[in-house]
């Protein structure tokens, strides 16, 4: 990051620092080594030594996990739930924040604080009543229950991010459009929303990761049904395969591939999004 970085010489202290940091990294990354090697071992090999490199990579673990765990279905479920929730979340969150940031009344500020409260309230307090409500509405074991939950649960984060961005955004463009007689919704959709693109990116990244990884509520709502998402499927999988760790790890490996691919493609944006320090 420092300008002189590239021109520094390879002095002894610097080599020491590099090696020291690599040693820290090696210890830190040990679990990933275990992850990869276990997933590629045969049961006999795993029993012999949990640490060694696999001699003959057992790709059969992956096919077994994929087929018997029905991970394809779970992955489709996760994609459906995550993408629909995020799309609706972006729409609702940005519109709400637009009102809250542009209306300067006590009522709008109070509503804004009410949304922020959601960043703190543990979902446990409303967990049972909401579960009952979903059950009474016959929504359990459907995508709908999960999507509704995820939108409501992630709204505080998106309202917070959008409102912060909107307050710093000049109103000139919207006011010009208003003079031309455009309605509020048209102004928002045509003028404001495109200007929100950077913060929309952050909202999409943070909430997509939170929703994709969510476990507790999906376990309650869609656990054991054909609608179950990946974390829930992996949880069921662990119970089913008990101590066949090589198959469990292969299944977990499949489940994290989408996240890792997205991470390596969008690294810069993802890190920037999380650096703002908010996580639902």
């Amino acid at each position, binding site marked *: 990051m420092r300008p002189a970085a590239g021109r520094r010489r390879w002095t002894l202290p610097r080599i020491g620092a590099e090696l020291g940091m690599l040693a820290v990294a090696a210890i830190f990354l040990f679990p990933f080594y275990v992850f990869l090697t276990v997933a590629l071992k045969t049961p006999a090999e795993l029993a012999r030594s949990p640490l060694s490199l696999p001699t003959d990579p057992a790709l059969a673990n992956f096919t077994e996990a994929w087929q018997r765990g029905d991970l394809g279905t779970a992955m489709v479920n996760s994609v459906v739930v995550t993408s629909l929730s995020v799309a609706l979340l972006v729409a609702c969150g940005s*519109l709400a924040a637009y009102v809250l940031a*542009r209306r*300067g009344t006590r009522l709008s500020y109070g509503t804004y604080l009410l949304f922020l409260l959601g960043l703190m*309230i543990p979902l446990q307090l409303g967990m*049972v009543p909401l579960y009952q409500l979903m059950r009474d509405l016959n929504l359990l074991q459907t995508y709908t229950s999960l999507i509704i939950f995820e939108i409501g649960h992630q709204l*505080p984060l998106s309202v917070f991010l959008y409102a912060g961005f909107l307050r710093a955004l000049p109103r000139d463009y919207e006011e010009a459009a208003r003079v031309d007689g455009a309605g509020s919704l048209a102004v928002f959709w045509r003028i404001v929303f495109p200007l929100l693109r950077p913060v929309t990116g952050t909202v999409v990244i943070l909430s997509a990761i939170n929703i994709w990884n969510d476990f507790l509520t999906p376990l309650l709502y869609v656990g054991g049904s054909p609608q179950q998402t990946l974390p829930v499927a992996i949880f069921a999988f662990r119970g089913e395969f008990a101590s066949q760790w090589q198959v469990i790890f292969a299944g*977990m490996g499949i489940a994290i591939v989408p996240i890792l691919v997205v991470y390596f493609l969008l690294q810069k944006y993802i890190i920037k999004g999380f650096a703002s320090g908010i996580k639902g």
Partner: protein
Amino acid sequence: MTLTLSRPAVDGGPRATRRRARRARVPYLLLVPALLFYAFVVLWPTLQGAGYAFTDWAGRRETPGFVGLDNFTELFSAPAARSALRNTLIIALSTTIVQTLVGLALALALHSALASRNLLRTMFFAPALLPPVIIGFLWQYILTPAGPLNDALGAVGLGGLAQNWLGDSSVALASVIAVIIWQNAGLTMVIYLAGLEGVPPELHEAATMDGAGRWQRLRHVTLPLLVPATTIALSLTLIGSLKLFDQVYVMTGGGPGYATETLSVVMYKEAFVSGRYGYSTAIALVLTMIVFAFALLQLRGLRRFEVQQ
């Protein structure tokens, strides 16, 4: 949260904005979809839950009976809930402190000219993005008595340190805490790295000219400017670790005995295994109170600190 609450003041406060708002009125109607979702998922169930905490509601009975503070008396005397309360506080405080220090150390090390810095940043942050369930199972295996960790310790001649990491109640809680820190230290690092990018290099140059050494610059230039990043990192870790569920539930289920029980885990078991809805929401209410108490404490403490700087 400090940043959040003080933000409208920058804008000129409600009064100044109100003057401008007269020109362009955004209809409150646009707020409705978000409010509906939020009220349905968060506000209404939370209020209901707060009410149920004072009843013996068990789901089967139609009308829950009011039992006053009975649930809370039970909570503070039942072994499971008491351990959960203790463990939740231990987990929250120790992860918050250690993770912040580790994250800061990593950020300082990687905000440097190290050739490997970009690669290392990517790797250290990766666990924070992965599903906690998967992290939980990964470590559950690593920590088994005949598993990779004990094997690795043996291989480097530290076989004497081998433990039944998750099965022995004297080390299980520490193991869980270590896993949480391993997963999230990268998140704290990323927050501190963003803070470090904001430290103007001129300040360091000026301090060096004045004869400040490396440690003096860290102590008197860098760290004071990292207070906002610390605020963010602390509140995020604190609130997150108080609510901790996934990793504990999949790794130990709260065991052995009650050694790793947390309020979220006990609450879940009381509600969805025992069907004691009233009692479980009482546990959730106590958790909520703790979260709010910590948030307030932190807000006050950090404000004072920011003023001093």
